[in-house]
Every structure is written in C-alpha cells, then in structure tokens.
C-alpha cells in the first residue's frame, strides 16, 4: 500500500450509510408495527369481545 493512499470517503460513507440504514429500518418497522397493533386492539374493543 506504500505510495497509494486509500481514499477514506467511500469507507466513511459506507459505514455511516449502513449504520443509519439499520437504525432507520428498525425504527420505521416499530412505528408501523405500533399502528397495526393499535388497529387490532381497536377492532377487538369495537367487537366487544370478552377479555
């Protein structure tokens, strides 16, 4: 590697990109799951089924 310095930008972009992607993906999945669970809970309340 002597005499051929590595360009750091692609590595920095890849590390931050992958990290942020995983965090955003998980967070959005949780928020969407919450909406679905609330809808289910609401449907159960509306049918008036015994708990």
């Amino acid at each position, binding site marked *: 590697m002597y005499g051929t*310095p*590595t360009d*750091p930008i692609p*590595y920095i972009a890849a*590390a931050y990109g*992958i*990290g942020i992607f*995983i965090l955003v993906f998980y967070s959005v999945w949780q928020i969407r799951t919450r909406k679905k*669970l609330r809808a289910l809970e609401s449907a159960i309340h509306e049918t008036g*089924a015994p708990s």
Partner: protein
Amino acid sequence: MVDANKQDRLTVGLGLAAAVMAGICWFYGLRFAPTDQAQGEVYRILYFHVPSAFTAFLFSALLMFFSIWTLFKRSPGGALWAKATAEVGLIFTIITLMTGSIWGRPTWGVWWDWDARLTTTLILALLYAGYLIFTSSMAPGPSRDRMAAALGVIIAIDVPIIYKSVTWWRTLHQPPSLMRQGGSTMDPAMVRTLMMCWAAMTLLAVWMLWTRAVNLRLQQRIEEHSHGVHN
C-alpha cells in the same frame, strides 16, 4: 384510544428528537473533530463504531438487570423488557461489527480477522440472536422466562471478556485508548465528540427499547385476549 394516539405521537416525536441529536453529533464528528495524525480521515468511522459498541455492551448489562429481576421477582414484565433489550442489543452489536469491518479494511488491510476482540464481539451477536430465537420458539410461561433469564445473565458475562480481550491476548485490534491506566491517549476534542455521540446513540437506543417494549406488551395483550376468546 385518544390517549393511545397521543402516546404514539409522543413516541414518534421523541424518536425524531433523538435522531436529530445523533445526526448533529455525527455531523460534528465528520466535519469539526480534529484529524487523526496516524489514521487520517478514516478514523471518523469510530464516531459511529465506538458508541455502537458501548451501547451494545450497556444493553448486555441492562439485559442482565432485567434477567435478574425476572429470576427474583418472577415478573413477566421483566421478561418482556429483557426480550426488547436483547433485540436492541443485537442491532447495535451488528452495527459495531459492520462499521468495524469497514474501518478495518483501509486501516488493517483486511475486512475481518479472527482476533480475540472481533471474535468475542461476534460471539456476543450470536448469543443475542440465540436468546431471541430461544424466547420466540418456546411456549410462553414462567419456565421459558426463567430459562431465558439464565441465558440473559450468561450473555452479560461475555462483555468483560470482550473488554479485556485486547490485553489478555495478542490481537490485531489496538489496546484500549480511552479507558486505560494513565489516562486516555486520545485528543480531548476527540474524546468529547466521542462521548457526545455515545450519549446521543444511547438516547436513540433507549427510545428503541421503549418503543419495542410497548409493542411487545400490546402484542401480548392482543394474544391473551385472542386465547381468552378461543378457550
């Protein structure tokens, strides 16, 4: 339902606030932190990698806390929080491994090496994954909760081994530069940025934990209700 909607909006708002804080810290690390004399600019990956690792380790301690709580109090609530903790802990361990690998390529010349620090961190990820597979595959009940709690305590034992691995064995990974005898070898400006990033990432992780735990509780209530209707 109005209260639930309010709570969900607050959840999203707090998540966005934590994300903005983390974004500001990462931007500061990328733009304003001093350049490392030995590594050059590529060391800036560490503002993502090191806080992720610290958060993953912190969550193993939290998992141990919830596991002990489950074992002694025999509380199903503790098991639920433990499961959410293991999930978030796994995410941060995966991020640690991936960002570390990307940093390792230009710094060490390899994407991966079976050295003690990397291998024990991979074991932590496998333990978290094993814990989640175990809790998902067993029938719910006190027996599953107790066995999962025992596994949760074992997971936490791996973290001191990860921490000491670079001093116990000869490794490619460098020895501690932050928490070491004689003080940190890092520039104080770098340490400040790193601590800021860790604080922001911990907030984000706590938000993820809270969101996941509430979802698991909701899911549990719906399942209990469904079983009640069918029995």
